[in-house]
Each structure stands twice: as C-alpha cells, then as structure tokens.
C-alpha cells in the first residue's frame, strides 16, 4: 500500500515537474511558438495513441478506425464553439464529442468486434471512412471546406493536463482487473472465455474507451489548430497513430509516449529537409522497424514501485 502511494507520488511529481519546466521555458522564451506547436502535437498524439494502444496493444483488436472517432470529437468542438465561444462551451463540446464517440463506438463495435485480425481492421477502417464521408457531405460540418476560425481554448497547459489525465486513466485501466481481462482476450480468447471472461464485453469496453480518448484528442486538435476538414481524418491519419503505437511497442504505454516524442522530434527535424522530408521519414520508419521489430520498448513499462524498497517484489 505504501509502495503504491509512493509510486503515485513520484508520478505526480514528474507530471507537475514537466508542467513547471515547460511553463518556465515558455516564460523565459526558450520555447517559442514553433516548439510549443511541436509539444502540443506530441501531446495530442500521445492522447490518441494511448487509446489505440489500449485497443491494439492490450486487447489485441486490430482497429484502423481511430481517425473516425477523432473526427467526431474535432467536429463536436468545431461546431459547438461557433455558438458557444467560451471555456465552458469548449469543455462541454469535449464531453459531447466523447459521448457521441462512445455511441458510435458501440454501434460500430458490437457487430464488428466479432471479426478477427485484419478483417476487423478493414471493417473499422470502413466504418471510419463512412464517418468521414458523412461529415464531408453534411451542411453543419461545412462539407469539404471544413471549419476554421475555431477559438483556441486548447492551449498547451490544457493539452498537457488532459494528456496526463489520459495517461493516468489508461494506465489505471490497464493495471487493474479490467486490464488483465482485456489482456487475456489478446492472449487467447477461447481460454479467456473458459476462465469466465465475457470477451465481447471486454473487447467493447476497450474499444469504447479508446474511441473516447480519440474524441478528446480530436477536440484538442480542432481547438488548438483552429482549423479542421474531413480530409484530415482519413485512413492515412489512422495509420499515423498506428505507427506511434507499433513503433513504441504495442502493449507498452511508456513506449507510446516515447514513440510519440521520437516521431515528434524526427518530424520537427525533418521539416528542414524540404522535399526530401517524407523520403527520409519513410526510410527511418523502415529501419526502425527492421532493427526494433518489437517496437522501441517492446512491452516494457516504466515503474516506480520498486523505488526505495530494497528487495521488494512488486506485481
């Protein structure tokens, strides 16, 4: 018990320290808009990839539809902030996005989660494309032109705090009875059922949870970038998030954070390479995967449970 509290305090300390550090750098001007942009993008990517990692890495369900749920959150915020231009409006829009995403995830998940492996991937990708096409043809979403001049409530502190909350929530989910249940589904669903685990329910739970975080990420993205359009939520965007998950190590939350940061750095640095940017990125991606097939961290997790207690065996 004490050990847990100590570990939690270390985590809290790290998060607060990160905040203060960034704040100090902003204040002294070490971090300019450009770097802030990079930070925030990494933060939002972490939120998105955490949710996807829960679905893919922990539950073993191959979803390629993350961008669709992200779009739901983004448009909820984009649309609601047109008339409710206030912080309350923003948070309300986040909540609405999450609720709609959850409903969509249930509608999509209940039938499709029966599918396996790549069949599920294609079905979720299809569902996400359907969402995108619908958004592309609706009036309220302003069609392909998308929405712009969205007020910026998602400033970096907001993104940072939401990112921390997302990490905590997903980590807490994973390190609990629920997490063990979804992992058993990943490992062997037949055995899981035989052990009394309702695999359908747990798959859906993870899928819905992941979708909700995607919606949150979408809301933040919309309000930070202040512009959204349907083309941002296509298959390639789902893949971009998938890359973070796999590169970090499917099944490692720490890995997701590391991969998002690494990719953020690569992306930022490559901005200096003009036309060659994507060529180098592609090569980097291939090489990283060939030399680190399990992802950067495999399934390793950073943990502070052993800190300060000699010989303690945590579980």
């Amino acid at each position, binding site marked *: 018990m004490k050990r847990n509290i100590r570990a939690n305090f270390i985590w809290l300390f790290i998060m607060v320290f990160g905040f203060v550090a960034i704040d100090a750098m902003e204040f002294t001007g070490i971090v300019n808009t450009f770097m802030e942009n990079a930070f925030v993008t990494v933060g939002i990517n972490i939120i998105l990839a955490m949710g996807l990692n829960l679905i893919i890495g922990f539950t073993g369900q191959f979803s390629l539809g993350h961008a669709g749920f992200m779009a739901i959150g983004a448009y909820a915020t984009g649309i609601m902030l047109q008339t409710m231009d206030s912080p309350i409006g923003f948070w309300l829009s986040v909540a609405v996005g999450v609720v709609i995403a959850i409903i969509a995830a249930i509608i999509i998940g209940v039938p499709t989660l029966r599918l396996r492996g790549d069949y599920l991937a294609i079905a979720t990708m299809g569902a996400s494309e359907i969402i995108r096409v619908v958004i592309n043809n609706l009036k309220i979403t302003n069609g392909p032109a998308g929405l712009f001049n969205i007020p910026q409530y998602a400033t970096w502190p907001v993104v940072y705090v939401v990112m921390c909350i997302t990490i905590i929530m997903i980590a807490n*989910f994973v390190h609990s*009875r629920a997490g*063990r249940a979804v992992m058993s589904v990943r490992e062997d669903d037949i*055995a899981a059922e035989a*052990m009394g685990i309702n695999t359908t329910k747990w798959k859906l739970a993870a899928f819905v949870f992941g979708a909700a975080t995607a919606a949150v990420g979408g809301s933040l993205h919309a309000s930070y970038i202040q512009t959204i359009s349907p083309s941002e939520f296509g298959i390639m965007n789902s893949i971009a998030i998938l890359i973070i998950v796999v590169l970090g190590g499917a099944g490692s939350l720490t890995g997701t954070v590391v991969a998002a940061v690494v990719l953020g750095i690569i992306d930022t640095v490559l901005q200096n390479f003009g036309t060659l940017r994507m060529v180098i990125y592609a090569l980097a991606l291939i090489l990283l995967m060939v030399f680190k097939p399990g992802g950067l961290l495999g399934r390793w997790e950073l943990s502070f449970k052993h800190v300060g207690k000699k010989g303690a065996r945590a*579980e």
Partner: protein
Amino acid sequence: MTHLLQVDHVTQQFGGLKAVSDVSMTVDAGELIALIGPNGAGKTTLFNMLTGVNTPTSGTITFTTAKGTMKVNGKRADQVAAAGMSRTFQNIRLFSDLTVLDNVRIAMTHRTRENFAETMLRLPSFYKKEQAITDEAKALLKDFGLERIGRSIAGELPYGEQRRVEIVRALATKPSLLFLDEPAAGMNPEETAALMALIKKIQADYDVTVILIEHDMALVMNLVQRIYVLDHGSLIAEGTPSEIRNNAEVVASYLGGAPVAEG
C-alpha cells in the same frame, strides 16, 4: 437427488459426422471420473459442449450447484465458467505472454469487482481489492508449490509446469466441477505420478468434482472412481476401473493388450 451435472442425450454433429451421439451421463458432487475412449471418439468434443465452447446439436446439459440450476446449452463459455465449471485444454492454452500470477488472477475476474471510479482514482478500496486478489492468487500458487514461478512468463516454462499452471488457473475460477483434458500427455512416469498427487489434492482440499480425459491407464485406473467409455461418439461402457478393465468391448476397442497397472 439432483446431480451436479446431468447430461441428457447430447449429440454433436459436424456436417455428416456425429462426433458425439446421444450421450447421457451424470456426475455427482465429490466424484472423480474419467472419460476414456479411442482417438477421435468424441471426448474432447463432449468436454467442449459441457463447458459451453460448442453448443450441442441436440440434448440438454443441466448443472446444479448451491447457487442454483443452469441449463448449459445455449450459454456462452464464460457464463458456464462463472457458474462453476472450469477446464484445461488438450493443447495447453495459457496466456503465454503474461506471468503465471496474472494467469491466475485473470481467472478470478468474474468473481471480483472493481468499479470504474475506484480504478481510475486509485482509491484505497482499489488497492485493498487488488491486494486481496493477489494474495488469493499467491496462496493458490503456493499451495501447489508454484510460488517461485509466479513472476515467470507462462509461455517460457517447461511443459510439465505449464500443465500444472493451467490446472491451478482453472481452480482459481473456484469451480465446483473441473474438466481436465489429457493432463498427463507428454509427461514421463515420474511427472505423471506427481500429477496424480496433485489431482487428489485438488479433490480433497478444494472440494471440487473432477472429470478427466486421459489415455494414461496407469493414472486412470489408480485415480478415479468411475469411468465412462466413449467410442465413435457413443457411450459403450460405464463403471468402476476394475469393471472397465475387464469389459471385453473396451479392451477390444481401446485398451488392447496394454499392460494396465492394477488398482
């Protein structure tokens, strides 16, 4: 008196093949029963129906415990497991990337609760519940001499240990009825002997009724009280080990001239 498990005329049809045909049997609490029969007789298939993995083509399966009576056919495997039937598999099915301890803790999922708020907020009640789950799992492992491998990855263990972990995992669901599919396969005589001790212990200490499939006659004849013999999907005999050993039909179709240890 109601039986713990009552199987009435169950049949499993795969296309043109009746893998199990019109089998009826009963199991009472506290029994130790073996299901034997030639390869392809339908033993595993019968287990699959009893544990909800497959749904019988026809027939009914009723499971009665203190908690109540349940009609097994039509139920999902997890519902069946939650009601108190647990099993191991002919081909080991551990959660092979997870630790032994997690394998066991997962089996306790259906009978433990952690609500969303306490999980997310890490309330003291959460830690208390986790501790309780962990303690129980550890105690169980300890009881079977497996505590030292609690943190090992299940898939990396030697075969014999994997078999034992699978049995312990099944026990962690707190079953009233435990199904073991060929627990001794791939074991040498020494290990088989240890397995027998383990099964006896389960029966004695955990108040569990056991049905097992086994081709190792030394184990079957020395361990069980009653034997059902399946051949070509149908029951051809039922009785005590000595009755079965001397049943001409069983000898002809199954035992052959194999030297069978005396009870």
